[in-house]
């Protein structure tokens, strides 16, 4: 906790963007400074108002509204990813109670959000950084190692249901659609489509014109995969056909994405994929219809943008970044 400090939101003009759409001009509205460890992944518990960061060798917890330190969890060797299992109280969303974290050494830890204590530790079949995604239909956590393995973990018990070696990639992973785990592979210039039910590779989606896909987000209802490439190309893929039907121009460099419904509340955008890229570009791909997406806006924040999470309580975005060489979490809103 000592390595974090809160910084007042005073001089954020460096993060401001030229407005392109008056109603939805995203800008940095706050910045939470961290002491020394850069953030590899961000997850937000909207109902519980906590922010979980994979940083250093553990998980750092902040108050989502203030950036105030709210806890830590150790036990990782180069924390790489963190995700929270969504919870419901009847029809209403409830604070999450369980989380999963991973590291660069092939470990996955299941932990309780109540006491930040690990409840299970899993060693994947291969070493290397592990990325996580949650399949809401199967209620499983899918752990993908860049070393070339996939593990399917019961989100409730933390037990491995099955795992095996399989081709993967170093980019983002997403899942929740027809047992598929999509893995961006910048080196092979494809998105691998892994099937966690069969533990087989169902085939690849080649890039139409982009190079080095690294950022992914998924609309599980529309079955749309948003793929950001490091060369500035954003491809929107119909996952039923594996067909890129829209290409847009994004920022440059490694990308991270998140997808959100009604990201500005009712009456505004129906849905959006937000993409944060290494060159400081935040892109908002606006859904007009399931077959029509436009670039809703592009906003220049500071360089070094990384992992991004959407807070559906405040409609804010939390983005790992750097400010003058120091790690920060940028809070972006409109």
């Amino acid at each position, binding site marked *: 906790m000592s390595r974090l400090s809160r910084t007042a939101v005073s001089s954020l003009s460096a993060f401001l963007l030229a407005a392109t759409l008056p109603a939805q001009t995203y800008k940095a509205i706050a910045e939470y400074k961290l002491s020394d460890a850069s953030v590899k992944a961000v997850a937000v518990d909207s109902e519980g108002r906590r922010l979980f960061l994979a940083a250093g060798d553990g998980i750092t917890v902040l108050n989502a509204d203030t950036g105030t330190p709210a806890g830590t969890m150790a036990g990782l060797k180069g924390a790489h990813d963190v995700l929270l299992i969504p919870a419901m109280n009847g029809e209403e969303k409830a604070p999450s109670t369980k989380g999963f974290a991973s590291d660069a050494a092939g470990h996955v830890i299941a932990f309780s959000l109540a006491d930040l204590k690990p409840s299970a530790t899993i060693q994947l079949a291969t070493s290397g950084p592990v990325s996580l995604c949650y399949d809401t239909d199967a209620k499983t956590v899918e752990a993908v190692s860049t070393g070339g393995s996939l593990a399917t973990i019961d989100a409730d018990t933390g037990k491995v249901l099955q795992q095996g070696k399989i081709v993967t990639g170093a980019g983002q992973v997403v899942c929740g659609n027809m047992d598929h785990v999509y893995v961006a592979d910048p080196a092979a210039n494809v998105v691998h*489509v892994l099937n966690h039910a069969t533990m087989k590779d169902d085939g690849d989606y080649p890039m139409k014109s982009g190079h080095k896909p690294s950022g992914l987000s998924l609309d599980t209802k529309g079955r749309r995969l948003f793929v950001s490439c490091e060369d500035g190309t954003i491809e929107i893929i*119909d996952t*039923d*056909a594996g*067909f890129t*039907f829209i290409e847009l121009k994004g920022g440059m460099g490694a990308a991270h994405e998140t997808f959100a419904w009604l990201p500005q509340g009712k009456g505004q955008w129906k849905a959006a994929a937000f993409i944060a890229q290494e060159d400081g570009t935040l892109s908002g791909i606006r859904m007009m219809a399931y*077959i029509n997406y436009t670039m809703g806006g592009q906003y220049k924040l500071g360089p070094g943008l990384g992992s991004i999470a959407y807070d559906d309580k405040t409609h804010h975005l939390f983005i790992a970044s750097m400010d003058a060489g120091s790690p920060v979490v940028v809070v972006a809103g409109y």
Partner: protein
Amino acid sequence: MFRCKHIILALLMAAFAAGMIANAQQILTPAQAKGKKILLVVGEPEKGETNDDDAVKKHFESLGYVVTTASEDDPATKASGQDLVVLSSTADPREIADKYMEVAVPVFTWNTVDYPDMKMTGPERHVDFETIDHVQDFARSFSMLYGYFPNATDPIVKEFGGKTQLFGTGYLLPQNFGWGKPAAGADIIVNTEGDPTHAGVFTYEKGVTMYGGFVAPARRVGFYIQDSTFHYLTEVHGLAAKDPDMADWWVGLKLFDASIRWALSQPVTPAPYDPGATKAALAKAAKGKRVLFVRRLDTPEGEESDDHIVEHLKEVGFIVKEEDQTEPQSVADGEDFIVLSATNSKYKTTNKYRDAKIPILCLEGLMADTLKMAGRRRYVDYGEHGELTESEDPQEAYLEIVNSNHPMAAGLKNGYVKFIKEADVLKWATPAPSATIIATLPNSTHERAIFGYEKGAAMADEYVAPARRTMFPVDNPAFDDLTEAGHALFDAAVLWTISPPAK
């Protein structure tokens, strides 16, 4: 001398057989096509508009083609030394006009409005060709998303394993498209909007008759995309690519690529006109084959003509069984081939033989509908030319050959050919677009006299041909009136009909 004659005959038969083989229309493999030179003719980009010309160029280059770009203002001489000219719809059709019409290099075009100047269709917009705008014609732009392959045995469709069925032309978005109504000599590869005459993709073989009697100087292809729709051509990846139904649906880009390679491939070379060689080739193919000749026995007219047809069939080696029109279809059991005489009454022959799994040569044009070879509207889909009380047209002795490259043309050149010695009644039909048209009646291009369906082609009512089907107008008693060319056409039609179908 005897030995010399045999050698010559063997050579002629070999030449004829070579013609048949050439008709198989081999398409270059992707590897063979690499290095081919393409001239891509494009227009000036509209201000504020995007188009796919650059994407097309990159796609060609990714396949190993050497692409040179030309502007709409460049002279047609730029095509010299190229293997293929590609006309984008971005080129102003009034600027390129008929510039590439006579170029002896294959042309692949999606410049729909230029189709008439290329002699690929007639001149009337909305009648002979049309461009569908996704804003003005919103609903229709969705219907154009569904194409139909009427003939899975077409070499282009066969190249990527397409089936006689619908497929997705472009991605599920309202888009601009183009279609044309090509002349009789064309092959329709894709039709759209549920209208068999709206060809989304169509081809002309080198040497066939295009619109207005113009003879194709090289292969020609019309394709449905427009300025900015190339990137929507469907393709499939991932799990869907392993599902045969889904893989067969999203084939727009495969169709494009196969069509390009067809255009780049060697055209069919017709065998020379030689009635003796044709007859000899038929004799070789017919030897020992069993043919059912269905006729009206004891007919007051045409009996002698039927007898002579039977004699001819026997002469070339067929084992002929003659049956009356009223006999059940089971008389065809064990036969290899059926010939339906024009002495038959359509009314009495009923729907028999249409589902026969052996080839049929029909000499009676009025049976086109019962055999599913044309629609059911008498005098619209089929009719009689020169019948005193049923046609306002005069009797006719000539046919117009429109597809000299096809084996059924017997090596005859495109244009008029005297078919029967004296003008008489000639039957005709307007078959489905999957048919291959060999000859039409003069001055009535929709009245198709000689045509054939490949096994597996969709005929009228989408009825899939169980075996080859050929229409050949020999009204009673015209067989005896056939000219030398008419006899050659008859033999060539029989030979094609009994030859192994395309696989």
